């Protein structure tokens, strides 16, 4: 039986995180959510990528559109100059004003100026027209203040001389401090020679209109041009606060201005920079980078809904998995809990406790094993209890027997002693005169009573020995020499008048031993009296000496001896040898008792005998004999 202090291990509540069901729920949730998360991640990544690709494609087509619009717009400028020069009268006037200004009438000059002004007014593509000579002197212009100016240092001057038509990419005009685009066309005289250049300054607001027109662009989208000139904006940002004349540098702008075309995800020019998806293209005619951008947040907004959906699905799956985990954990853990409860009950001593787990799985198997184990344990405990009860009962019977024997010995001996003693009184004549015949008869009574008393004592001893109830009164320093002398005197009286020589050979250094003096004496007297009894003539000899750690005593006689077949009977109770039977007398218990007493002293008793020649009994007793216990085991 376990003590209570050892029990409660299973009774204490287990912390949640160590509980089987907790880890199972966790496991289920993990099992459900992780693959879902991975799938969602891949799904969302793909969606984002698709959305980005869609936007990139869209931006690319917008860039393509804008590029075409720009080309068209620039081409329209050249076409406009063609139209102007297709008017042969006007071309002739120009040629005349260059080659022979002096022959022109004031009227002609006025007409020319009016014509040029009307072109500007009718053609929104141009802000200004000038006609300059091959020396770079402006001879005609929509603005009279231009006449007389030199264009030799202007970037378009040399190319305009070399090319029939030329479009000057944006440059800073010193007098206006504005980025300016000039389209030039050579003017030929009737001989086909170039005599002047017609130059038109393009109205950039149209370009601005093209770029800020946002067809096909989402809310955050914009297109703009960044000039190679100082990385300034050629067309304004659609957002407020971004000056045209400031250097803007982003990945797209830098790559675009290096003449590259491409797309990317990068931070744009805004303050603070916005992550955008952008497409850039180098527009050589404008020496500018055309950028189309859409804020990435807007692109991702679509997939954000998917993200929210996925999150919700993940949540539902996680909850379902948790519930499933809980149910499954309960299914698994409830038999375990039941089993634990049964084991607990069983360990508290409820041996009839059996678990009722019915599952057919391993836990069911465990429960069955537990039940059969419990049955086995119960059986063993019941058997043990029965054995204990039997032992208790036997113990009781033994006690009763001992008590009986003790009382019997007392009850038997007391009257016997009275019989013996009073008879002796009578024999001795203390009670009055007795005759010979009476003495003889009464002596026989004493003899028989004494025999009975001895018989009773032997039976008592034997029964005690058999019941294991014999108690030794162990003394230290038992003097064997003295004991042997006492035995010798007993022997002398037993020999009586028979022709027997009594010899002793007792070593002078015989040690004192640890033993029950009375019992050793009893053994010695028993043997010596047998020797005297069965010897008619000859010698009875006692030898005592020390051999190793033992005292060795031999008592030999020259009596009748014991047949070899009978020798083993000597030490068995109630058995007598043939010689013994012939001799008569004795209880047949003396030698068995002697053997048991010597055995209980951890010694040995044995005999050697030859029929007709004599018998020798040997006793060996340990000197120290520390193991000697007061009772027979």
């Amino acid at each position, binding site marked *: 039986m376990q003590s209570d202090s050892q029990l409660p291990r299973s009774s204490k509540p287990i912390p949640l995180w160590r509980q089987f069901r907790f880890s199972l729920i966790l496991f289920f949730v993990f099992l459900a959510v992780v693959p879902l998360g991975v799938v969602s991640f891949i799904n969302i990544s793909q969606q984002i990528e698709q959305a980005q690709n869609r936007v990139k494609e869209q931006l690319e087509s917008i860039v393509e559109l804008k590029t075409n619009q720009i080309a068209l717009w620039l081409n329209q400028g050249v076409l406009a100059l063609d139209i102007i020069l297709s008017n042969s009268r006007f071309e002739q006037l120009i040629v005349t004003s260059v080659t022979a200004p002096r022959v022109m009438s004031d009227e002609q000059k006025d007409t020319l100026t009016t014509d040029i002004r009307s072109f500007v007014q009718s053609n929104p593509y141009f802000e200004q027209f000038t006609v300059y000579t091959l020396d770079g002197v402006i001879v005609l212009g929509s603005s009279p203040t231009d006449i007389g100016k030199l264009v030799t*240092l202007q970037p378009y001057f040399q190319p305009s001389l070399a090319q029939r038509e030329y479009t000057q990419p944006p440059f800073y005009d*010193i007098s206006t401090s504005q980025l300016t685009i000039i389209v030039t066309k050579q003017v030929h005289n009737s001989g086909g020679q170039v005599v002047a250049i017609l130059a038109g300054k393009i109205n950039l607001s149209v370009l601005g209109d093209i770029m800020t027109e946002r067809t096909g662009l989402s809310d955050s989208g914009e297109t703009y041009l960044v000039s190679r000139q100082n990385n300034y904006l050629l067309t304004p940002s659609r957002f407020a606060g971004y000056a045209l004349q*400031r250097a803007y540098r982003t990945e797209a702008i830098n790559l675009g201005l290096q003449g590259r075309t491409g797309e990317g995800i990068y931070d744009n020019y805004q303050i603070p920079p916005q992550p955008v998806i952008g497409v850039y293209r180098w527009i050589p005619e404008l020496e500018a980078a055309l950028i189309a951008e859409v804020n990435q947040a807007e692109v991702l907004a679509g997939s954000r809904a998917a993200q929210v959906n996925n999150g919700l699905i993940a949540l539902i799956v996680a909850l379902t998995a948790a519930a499933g985990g809980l149910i499954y954990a309960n299914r698994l853990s409830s038999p375990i809990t039941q089993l634990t409860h049964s084991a607990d009950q069983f360990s508290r001593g409820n041996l009839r406790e059996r678990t009722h787990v019915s599952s057919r799985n391993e836990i069911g198997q465990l429960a069955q094993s537990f039940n059969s184990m419990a049955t086995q344990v119960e059986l063993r405990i019941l058997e043990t209890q029965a054995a204990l009860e039997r032992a208790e009962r036997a113990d009781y019977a033994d006690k009763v027997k001992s008590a009986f024997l003790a009382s019997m010995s007392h009850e038997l001996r007391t009257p016997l002693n009275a019989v013996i003693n009073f008879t002796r009184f009578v024999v001795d004549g203390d009670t009055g005169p007795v005759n010979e015949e009476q003495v003889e008869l009464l002596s026989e009574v004493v003899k028989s009573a004494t025999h009975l008393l001895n018989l009773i004592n032997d039976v008592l001893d034997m029964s005690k020995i058999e019941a294991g109830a014999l108690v030794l009164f162990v003394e230290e320093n038992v003097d064997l020499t003295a004991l042997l002398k006492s035995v010798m005197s007993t022997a002398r009286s037993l020999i009586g008048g028979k022709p027997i020589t009594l010899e002793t050979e007792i070593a002078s250094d015989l040690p004192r031993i640890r033993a029950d003096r009375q019992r050793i004496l009893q053994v010695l007297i028993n043997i010596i009296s047998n020797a005297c009894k069965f010897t008619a003539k000859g010698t009875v000899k006692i030898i005592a000496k020390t051999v190793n750690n033992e005292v060795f005593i031999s008592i030999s006689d020259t009596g009748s001896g014991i047949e070899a077949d009978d020798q083993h009977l000597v030490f068995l109770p109630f058995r007598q040898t043939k010689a013994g039977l012939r001799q008569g007398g004795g209880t047949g218990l003396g030698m068995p008792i002697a053997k048991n007493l010597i055995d209980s002293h951890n010694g040995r008793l044995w005999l050697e005998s030859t029929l007709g020649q004599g018998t020798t009994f040997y006793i060996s007793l340990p000197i120290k004999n520390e193991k000697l216990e007061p009772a027979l085991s």
Partner: protein
Amino acid sequence: MIKHSRSLIAACLSAFVVLLSACAPTPPSLTSTSIQLSWEHTIEFSGFQMAEREGYYAEQGLVTELRPAFSAEGSITDAVDAVITGKADFGIASNDSLMKLQAAGAPVVAIAAIYQRSPNALMSLAESNITRPEDLKGKTITVSGTSRIYYLNSLLHNAGIDLADLNIVDRTDFSTDELTSGKVDALDTFITNEPAVLEEEGYAYNLIIYADYGVDGYVNVIFASQDTINKRPELVEAFLRATLKGYQAAVDDPEKAAALSVEYNSNLSYETELTNMLVSVPLLHPNGSQIGMMTSEIWDLGSQLMREAGELSDEFDVTRSYTLDFLNKIYNP
């Protein structure tokens, strides 16, 4: 264990840092240098201001003193004088005045141009209707110093107008008061300077820009003495590198440049300086050019105009007036 290894890492790191700091170059002592400006602090010198404030001079191991031309007492320091006498390592002057002094034996050489096109112009109120050189006939105009007379000479000459047809007076008042009060019909100016002031005051104006009529030149070249160029080319290069970087920064961010100029000269207004900076951009960084770059074309034109005005002899070798060595070293290493 973790704690132990952390402290081990920390120990290793600190040892590494100690090693690093032992290896790190100690900052070299900075070289002092100076530039004599040709005017008070304005946006015209934004490159120098930027270079100083943004630490570009320090990057080049320099401490540069920027000296405005006008002292607190109102005296004017001549940059060429200052450089020749060794009071300043660098100076700013117009190419014509520099050539005139070089012809007289001044050992100075131009190393870069701030404005690569001339900002010189004649400014008049719109009501005067002076829009072309021809309109100047019979008008009273005021010009400062002799050098701008060459410009006027050339302009009028090209337009076929006699200088005698104009009433020319020396400009002594550097405000626009004479114009607005009607005392003069036109005055000479930089398009990068006074037009914005007039505009801010609410006047409409006309400009005759010399460069439009082929009269061009460098009004503010950076120069050094021949001695400095010969003996301390590394100083010249370092100074120029930082200064050009300063001008690039100003072009990149005109608003910042304007704000900085106002910090250097509290008499300026931010709006005016911003306008002037935007006007300066095409001069500082014209189409297809590098900041600070000079061309033989403009130097030749300048010397030619001077010869036409009789200010330079035919023997004057304009190629010795300037050197492109430093610019080429910086831009085409």
